[in-house]
């Protein structure tokens, strides 16, 4: 399953870091952050609940870049 989320982040490198952090989260098959559109596209693995996974993704992103937000 694929979903798209609106995000807020200030610098492009931070967006790259968020992408990396999201990709490493359990349950995420693939994630890509589009800094220009401020969007995060996440593809979930089967059998995971997107809502729960996104909570983790958000936590992990906050770890690498404190000043970011994912609007769930």
């Amino acid at each position, binding site marked *: 399953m694929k979903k798209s989320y609106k995000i807020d982040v*200030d*610098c*492009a*490198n931070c967006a*790259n870091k968020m*992408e*990396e952090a999201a990709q490493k989260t359990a349950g995420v098959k693939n994630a*890509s952050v*589009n*800094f*220009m*559109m*401020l*969007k995060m*596209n996440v593809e979930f693995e089967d059998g995971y609940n997107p809502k729960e996974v996104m909570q983790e993704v958000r936590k992990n992103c906050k*770890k*690498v870049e*404190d*000043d970011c937000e994912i609007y769930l």
Partner: protein
Amino acid sequence: MNKKQRKMLFRIIIAAVFLVLLNFIPVTGTAVFLLYLIPYLVVGYDILWKALKGIKNHQVFDENFLMAVATIGAIALALYEKSSDYTEAIAVMLFYQIGEWFQSYAVGKSRRNISELMDIRPDYANIEKDGRLEKTDPDEVETGSVIVVQPGEKVPIDGIVEEGESSLNTSALTGESLPRDVEKGDEIISGCINMTGVLKIRTTKEFGESTVSKILDLVENASSRKSKSEDFISRFARIYTPAVCCAALALAFLPPLVRMLGMGMAAEWGTWIYRALTFLVISCPCALVISIPLSFFAGIGGAGNAGVLVKGSNYLETLSQTKIMVFDKTGTLTQGVFEVNGIHHSEMENEKLIEYAALAESASSHPISKSLQRAYGKEIDRSRVSDIREISGNGIIAKVDGREIAIGNDKLMKHMGISFINCHSVGTILHMAVDHKYAGHIVISDVVKPHSKEAVQELKKAGIRKTVMLTGDAKKVAEQVAEDLGLDGVYSELLPADKVEKVEELMKNKPEKEKLAFVGDGMNDAPVLRRADIGIAMGAMGSDAAIEAADVVLMDDDPMQISKAIKISRKCLRIVYQNIVFAIGIKVICLVLGAVGIASMWLAIFADVGVMILAVLNAIRALFVKKL
């Protein structure tokens, strides 16, 4: 400017003013240190705070952390050496923040610019209720409803004009500034602006399926498909910061130790630590990381405004490397509007022959069938036709008024074992047989588009090495067109499947680095569009299949758009490479100069922020494609 940016700008100005004033205040000792601490904290407190959080989250290579280490280190050095020169550390923080501010401002600005360029999203649809117009959310309008579009309003949903006539401004969709006239019965595409008269439109699609939604969706998702250049930059950024930090660490400890232990000289710890801190200032890969995606984003936005929709950064990159251009003939280089130009050797009255032809082809939407139906000129009574069999690439056999009509090219006649008379005219020759007896042939010819020749020349100028035309048409016609247009190669009499084969063959025989693009009108080219390195669909307004299959969609059917697309992609990629070389080059120079002690921290931060600003400004240049 948003709230965050305004606040930051305020902090920057306060700190800068304070810093200048401090130069004139005659104080000494600890008081200086405390006074200088004020602008430092004003401009950099958030960096320090984020750095602390970074440490908590084990983010050693976080740029806030590195900036904090560099500036605090510089202040500590000044304290240690009792030089009281704190300006440098504060200036580094100040310029770093200026850079960040500029980046955020420029990106926000271009985000807005580009969305304005693609400002085709309709906000409402008018529905007439009890003689009054009611504004409705376009999402809620059902297929088949009648909507009213007044002058100055956008057409919100695709449909057919029921009533009224008007001129439409399609420039937001196609980049074409000439208005298009519509009247009752014409198809109308969402996203156009109605200019003169009131139109009543019966919708044929839902809003979500309408052209305007498809285009917006496509443009918004375009920069999610990342190009090789972007991947390269993110990989580079990932190793760049750690590498520079390790180099800084080595620079701080190795030379002094070697000097002290190996060469018996003074260690000069201060000098080397200062140089190491200079490294940290240059360790942020920001200029690169921001300017490359921004260039692509601006390029795709500018292209969209010119009527060239590119589905992703990767496709823009591939398009710029295109050396071989393969065209479909009908509808791409020629108008695809056929006319009956002659009827030869007819065994019956010409009108009767045309009538049979039009009826036999009545089920087909091919341009040739359309031209026969036009030549017939009367309403077609489909109940007279039965047993229609289409023989792909050859023709059609059908029963009309109980008589078997075969209509098609010479292959069909050969296949059926009917002897036929060859024609010497240039055009598409349709042989006809009635009840297995040859009945003559119809000559139909297509007209070359007015700009086709110019477009081919422009493509050559833009660096396309080879132009090839593929067509299902007869050899004679194809060769005539190819010669007129100055094409390098032509393959004729191809079935749809043959086109894929030919493209595959051309792709096999080209060097890996040269890319092959295929341009078609998207009607029946979907497999070829998918197979080519890059598929370009032309004049695709309203054709879903083409928008789906192609990588690049030209909204207008003017062949000049093809060369325009190539030029836009070349310009964008030129900017991308300029930025990569420029940004990496300056960083490397700064690192070298910093290591040997020529570049001070001042120079380092100037170079770093300067490169970023220039790279961002250069990236925005990709947006301006109108004059290409």
